[in-house]
């Protein structure tokens, strides 16, 4: 058998990549690409403009400016600490590089230098992350610059530098953790230590490990040369990761390859539910083999509601610990954002809605499973809506402890003021349930429509497809927003000197009404669609009868 030299194989790899790029460019639908850019620009630009208009142009007071200067580096450093934690944990779970499944089998098993073969995918990963980070940072920087000393251009630049550095920390930490084959527990411990230390810097003013990284964001105001040490550290981390590329685990690359391909497709299809599901699989998050505790055996017939209730808890009790922690963190984040709304940052209720939507996707796992096995549900002698609506009950009950977490977080955000506790508790459960219904809408919309032909979408004009895609993404968030904006009622009552608790109760009733409406929508959706479809068919038959008789 012959013994080929490694350079021959690498030439083939380079040649093939070049040819495949040409193939892809040749197959690219430029009109489609331009349309996507247009949609992204339209909605992205619109969002930036809306947020810009929600932020006042008046410069902050000297006291606030001094506060930003004193605490900004530590607070922004906390973001970098989270990026670091996400990076090391992602690296320990096999990130951040992903290859095509075929590349794993044909390129990685070929006798060529793996470091050279992996260099390009790793650089692409780093480049896209740094670009996204720089863009996001730049936009936020220029928004901040409108109220803080310094030119807008300088703030855009410093925001971009901060965002790029943050993204590089994430990719670099992931590369190092992966190539050093860091165990997951160690990665979690290391990431958590960084976050806690940085949190101590925020809370108690100790020197945080990521203060210099955070300080980069303030370069639009003042430049400190030694902040570049943070950049040097980040670059070193990236360089170490790149130098050790050949140590990337083929096992992890193979596992991630198929999932990442699906993830990209789901992102292309704006399928957020699938994106979240695949993220869980990428993180190897699996249901526990054994539940936290077993439900007592049900005696006799428990009926439809009882059966679905038990099935729901069987699944919920198998949620792994990281998922429960993540859900608690989301609930806490919702509480903090609602507290910020009360303190005057009105657009924050949109953030609460988005978090609530994600929480809904997390907790409604039994419903998701049923929707993903729609054939199984259709085979049951039960109206599908009756089955699906009952799947909402167990997750709704499971959300109650998380609502308490949200209430406490909101209360703390409002300075732990005693007057804020009761309204927070009154609003917590309805708001959390209501915000989660956005997730329910997103899940249930994936059910096949029993009354329409599968080809209907195929013949939809492109303008309509774009419109329905936008509705598909935005509508669940709108539903969530309907319930999170009820926090404006107690705020208005407080400003007007009225009863805050009374306003909170009114807000809670409003949120619960939305919950009830969504429940009924899930229950009656199919029946209504069938009725509408039958009505349309009757109309068509009548029209054709009229035409033939004429």
């Amino acid at each position: 058998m012959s013994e080929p030299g490694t350079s021959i194989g690498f030439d083939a790899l380079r040649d093939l990549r070049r040819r495949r790029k040409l193939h892809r460019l040749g197959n690219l639908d430029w009109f489609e690409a331009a349309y996507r850019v247009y949609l992204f620009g339209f909605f992205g630009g619109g969002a930036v403009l809306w947020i810009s208009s929600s932020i006042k142009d008046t410069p902050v007071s000297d006291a606030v400016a001094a506060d930003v200067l004193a605490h900004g580096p530590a607070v922004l450093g906390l973001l970098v600490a989270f990026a670091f934690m996400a990076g090391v944990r992602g690296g320990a779970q096999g990130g951040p590089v992903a290859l095509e499944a075929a590349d794993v089998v044909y390129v990685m098993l070929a006798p060529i230098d793996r470091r050279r073969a992996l260099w390009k995918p790793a650089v692409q990963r780093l480049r896209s992350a740094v670009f996204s980070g720089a863009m996001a940072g730049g936009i936020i920087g220029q928004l901040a610059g409108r109220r803080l000393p310094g030119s807008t251009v300088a703030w855009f630049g410093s925001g971009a530098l901060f965002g790029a550095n943050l993204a590089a920390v994430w990719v670099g930490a992931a590369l190092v953790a992966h190539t050093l084959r860091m165990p997951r527990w160690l990665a979690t411990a290391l990431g958590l230590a960084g976050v806690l230390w940085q949190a101590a810097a925020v809370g108690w003013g100790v020197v945080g490990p990521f203060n210099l990284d955070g300080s980069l964001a303030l370069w639009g105001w003042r430049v400190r040369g030694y902040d570049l040490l943070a950049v040097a550290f980040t670059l070193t981390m990236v360089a170490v990761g790149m130098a050790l590329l050949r140590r990337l685990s083929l096992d992890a690359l193979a596992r991630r390859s198929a999932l990442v391909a699906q993830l990209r497709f789901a992102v292309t299809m704006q399928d957020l539910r699938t994106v979240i599901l695949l993220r869980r699989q990428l993180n190897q998050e699996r249901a526990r083999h054994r539940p936290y505790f077993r439900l007592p055996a049900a005696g006799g017939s428990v009926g439809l509601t009882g059966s679905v209730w038990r099935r729901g808890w069987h699944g919920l009790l198998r949620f792994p610990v990281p998922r429960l922690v993540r859900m608690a963190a989301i609930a806490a984040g919702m509480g903090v954002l609602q507290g910020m709304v009360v303190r005057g940052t009105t657009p924050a209720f949109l953030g609460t809605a988005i978090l609530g939507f994600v929480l809904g996707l997390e907790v409604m796992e039994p419903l998701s499973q049923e929707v993903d096995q729609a054939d199984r549900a259709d085979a049951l002698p039960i109206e599908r809506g009756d089955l699906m609506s009952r799947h909402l009950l167990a997750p709704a009950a499971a959300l109650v402890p998380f609502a308490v977490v949200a209430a406490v977080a909101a209360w703390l955000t409002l300075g732990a003021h005693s007057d804020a506790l009761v309204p927070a508790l009154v609003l917590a459960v309805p708001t959390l349930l209501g915000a989660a219904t956005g997730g329910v809408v997103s899940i249930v919309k994936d059910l096949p429509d029993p009354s329409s032909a599968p080809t209907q979408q195929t013949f939809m004009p492109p303008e309509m497809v774009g419109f329905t895609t936008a509705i598909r993404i935005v509508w669940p968030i709108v539903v969530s927003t309907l319930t999170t904006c009820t926090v404006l009622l107690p705020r208005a009552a407080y400003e007007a000197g009225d009863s805050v608790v009374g306003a909170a109760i009114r807000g809670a009733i409003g949120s619960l009404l939305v919950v009830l409406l969504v429940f009924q929508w899930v229950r009656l959706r199919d029946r209504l669609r069938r009725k509408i479809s039958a009505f349309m068919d009757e109309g068509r038959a009548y029209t054709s009868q009229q035409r033939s008789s004429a």
Partner: protein
Amino acid sequence: MTAALSTHQLAKDYGDRPALEPLDLEVPEGQHVALVGHNGSGKTTLLRMAAGLLDPTGGEARIMGHVSGSLEARRSLSWLSDTPTFYDDLSLWEHLEYVGRLHGVAEWQGKADELLERLQLGVRRDDIPTTFSRGLRQKAAIAMGMVRPFDVLLVDEPFVGLDSNGKTTLLELLDEAAQVGATLLVATHELAFVGRVGRLLALRDGALVFDGPPSEADVHTLVLPS
């Protein structure tokens, strides 16, 4: 003489579930081995670890004396998976060219042509293999695994989806590879194939329960789960 494939305490577990108990194994050069076992017995786990595609929990595997996954091991090893994967923007012919060139085969065209003809894929050479049926994908994967030189061939469930012609051709190709001195390790549920090999390995629940000549084994019992 260096073993073509050797494992030392090679083990894999998934959390609290062992997939392969610590395994010591030596397959000499040129040996033709069948690997049998029930579903979930650890066959694919063993092969994937030997190929360097799966990280072992313990121990190590070596190919021609080199740690599996190393450059030298990859040079000697050809791996045929039970779930063939392809690029979705390359024709079958371009796939063969790519694999051939990655392995430094200057005259890959002749070999590729011959394989495609024998596997009755000649007319599909310019088609994209991701669009093929299960059986055709399997044949395409066989061609890709054999267009390049190898000392050791690891094959996982090669007969799945193949028609009778395909099975016959594959058996011929395996025989020819064995004749030129390649070492073959084939995981299969096709018990008829077991009679063609010189050595049989049987796994049950991740443990090696038989290692010897097929004539000494009650194969039907060996493939039953415990």
